[in-house]
């Protein structure tokens, strides 16, 4: 009888669990959520030496079964078979950081004491050696009573041996006598045992050069550290604009070529217009932002994989404490620069509920990658491509300013929220600083591929559907001769309604029209403008210009700036609202979030427009 076999990776945070997971399962991974909670469920397929497949789950890192945060709670429940809808894993693969045995053996004892088939992966052995440690895996195996396999996940060392050990442990499951849990131990007892076992396993300990302590001396320096962090963030935002350009140009040329080919090959008509004006103009205009999104995620992933992200949290803690948050909120907020959804999900590591709620409420103010297409388009259209000072482009500077506006808005919002709706005691900040590591290309590639795929899937589904729906609304009913197609269309009528509301803040009707489908995903604003102008140009017998030229020709500077200001604050993404609802268990907080963000967006777009007009821009 065949059955789905399951194994789970379990261990402390910073044990190199995820790198080991990547090494064991490769790109065959499925990322989903545990039902009911937004803790990421990472699962992949591991092929055992016998050829049998095993579903391998990467459980959230834990310090103890005595859970102090929602993700530790998931780990405890899954391992104990108490998680609804989740089958209890048969084999536990306990991942230990070889260089931090004394710490990791504390939780390890809790896992081993369950009496379940367990294999220990003595991971990151290379880093332990770098720190001057010589370990004896056999002694550790004897002390723990379970198989111990030395591994270096990032160099793929010990993987075959680990698979074999999992297979052997698996085989024991079949004739399994019921698990016999050992007697419960107290934390001080476990710590004492951990110390003893670690001592026995460490056969040599030279002073070693502890690289990370020396690197920390610079990166955590009270004055140099923050300067370096801001320099990195500045380079990140410049890179997003500058490095992506050749790739984006290439993609744009490809989309245009396909469009030309379709026009040349197929007879004119409804279907061809749908493909060129709807699908290619709409989806194509969003896909060209893929390079920028990949570059942004590359920076974030490198910061995480190298161990720098925790240092960034340390440096930011003082500032975050100033608005009633902690350095822990920095990581979700930085992730929100890529997308608010993983950002909001990353708040699960924040133990304090008020802290967590505040972080969720301000996460949409961080400039997510979906806003990047909007910013990029408007900046390219209305901001001249000049340099201010050595090597600093004005366009990059404006982009940086928009990001700063979002951050300042978020901080002000946090300050206000912490004094009103999420009032409570100041939160703590306790965080392990992982050792520095060279990020591995393979892990980065897997991470980037997953993020890029999520973006492309959105382009292929939500954005595709929204674009087609919009094209249909724009194209019907057909205009009378002499009448503009947009004026005549259904979409034009909807836009008229929205336009009355946003006209005072300087928005034109195409912008009003773009705001509606942008609720599905912000970047649809771009594809919506592209489709609108494509339909419009065609009806006026003009050659369609590149979108940025259309915008440059049709929008005044105050209008364009007001549109940018709107997108700094507007909560326009249904997925974010949905994830906030799931995270806060109800509609109360998402409704509050949407309300305050729309008010902010309207007020700031208005202020921008009126001030810009008054200055004669």
């Amino acid at each position, binding site marked *: 009888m065949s059955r789905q076999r399951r194994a789970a990776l379990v261990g402390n945070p910073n044990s190199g669990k995820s790198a080991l997971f990547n090494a064991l399962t490769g790109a065959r991974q499925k990322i989903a959520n545990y039902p009911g909670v937004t803790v990421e469920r990472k699962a992949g397929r591991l092929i055992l030496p016998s050829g049998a497949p095993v579903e391998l789950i990467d459980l959230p890192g834990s310090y103890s079964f005595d859970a102090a945060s929602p993700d530790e709670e998931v780990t405890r429940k899954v391992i104990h078979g108490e998680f609804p809808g989740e089958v209890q894993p048969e084999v536990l693969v306990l991942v230990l950081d070889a260089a931090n045995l004394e*710490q990791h053996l504390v939780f390890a004892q809790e896992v081993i004491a369950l009496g379940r088939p367990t294999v220990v992966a003595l991971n990151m052995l290379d880093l332990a050696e770098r720190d001057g440690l010589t370990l004896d895996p056999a002694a550790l195996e004897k002390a723990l009573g379970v198989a111990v396999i030395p591994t270096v996940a990032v160099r793929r060392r010990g993987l075959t041996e680990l698979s074999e050990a999992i297979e052997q442990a698996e085989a024991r499951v079949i004739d399994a006598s019921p698990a016999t849990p050992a007697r419960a131990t107290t*934390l001080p007892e476990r710590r004492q045992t951990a110390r003893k076992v670690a001592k026995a396993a460490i056969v040599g300990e030279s002073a070693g050069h502890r690289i990370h302590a020396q690197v920390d001396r610079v990166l955590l320096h009270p004055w140099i550290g923050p300067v370096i962090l801001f320099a990195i963030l500045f380079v990140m935002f410049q890179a997003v604009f500058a490095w992506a350009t050749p790739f984006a140009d290439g993609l744009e040329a490809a989309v245009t070529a396909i469009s030309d080919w379709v026009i040349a090959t197929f007879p004119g008509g409804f279907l061809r217009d749908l493909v060129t004006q709807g699908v290619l103009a709409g989806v194509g205009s969003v896909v060209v932002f893929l390079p920028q999104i990949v570059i942004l995620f590359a920076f974030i992933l490198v910061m995480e994989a190298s161990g720098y992200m925790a240092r960034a949290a340390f440096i930011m803690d*003082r500032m975050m404490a100033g608005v009633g948050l902690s350095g822990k909120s920095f990581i979700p907020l930085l992730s929100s620069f890529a997308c608010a959804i993983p950002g909001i999900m990353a708040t699960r590591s924040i133990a304090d509920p008020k802290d967590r709620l505040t972080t969720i409420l301000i996460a949409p103010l961080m400039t997510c990658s979906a806003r990047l297409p909007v910013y990029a388009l408007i900046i390219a259209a209305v901001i001249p491509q000049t340099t201010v000072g050595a090597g600093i482009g004005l366009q990059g500077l404006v982009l940086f300013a928009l990001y700063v506006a979002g951050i300042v808005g978020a901080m002000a919002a946090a300050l206000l929220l912490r004094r009103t709706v999420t009032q409570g005691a100041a*939160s703590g900040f306790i965080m392990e600083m992982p050792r520095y590591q060279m990020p591995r290309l393979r892990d980065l590639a897997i991470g980037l591929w997953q993020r890029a795929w999520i973006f492309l899937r959105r382009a292929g589904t939500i954005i595709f559907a929204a674009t087609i729906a919009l094209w249909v609304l724009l194209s019907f009913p057909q205009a009378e001769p002499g009448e503009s197609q947009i004026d005549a269309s259904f979409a034009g009528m909807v836009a008229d309604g929205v336009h009355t509301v946003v006209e005072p803040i300087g928005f034109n009707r195409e912008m009003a029209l773009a705001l509606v489908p942008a609720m599905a995903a912000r970047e649809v604003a771009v594809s919506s403008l592209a489709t609108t102008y494509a339909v419009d140009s065609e009806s006026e017998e003009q050659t369609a210009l590149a979108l940025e030229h259309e915008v440059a020709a049709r929008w005044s500077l105050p209008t364009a700036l007001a549109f940018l200001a709107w997108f700094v604050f507007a909560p326009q993404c249904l997925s974010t609202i949905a994830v906030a609802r799931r995270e806060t268990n109800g509609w109360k907080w998402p409704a509050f979030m949407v309300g305050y963000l729309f008010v902010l967006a309207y007020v700031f777009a208005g202020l921008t427009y009126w001030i810009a007009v008054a200055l004669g821009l």
Partner: protein
Amino acid sequence: MTLDQLDRGQRATVLSVDWAILAPEDAKRLQAMGLDQGAHVAVAHRGVFGGVDPLTVTIGRMTVAVRRVHAAAMTVEAI
């Protein structure tokens, strides 16, 4: 003397911890990390821009960032 008053780099033993003044989750997390009575610790870094908060504490081969309130709850003795 409490941990927050310790000179940077000075090694010390934690004599006692006043858990009552800390939030229960924080207490749980500190204990799980081994920041408890009997631990050998040192302050590695303290604050940014001349501040005193937060600080990083080394314990064994691990470095943990904590707030000053946590360090102030720990009575230590230099070794």
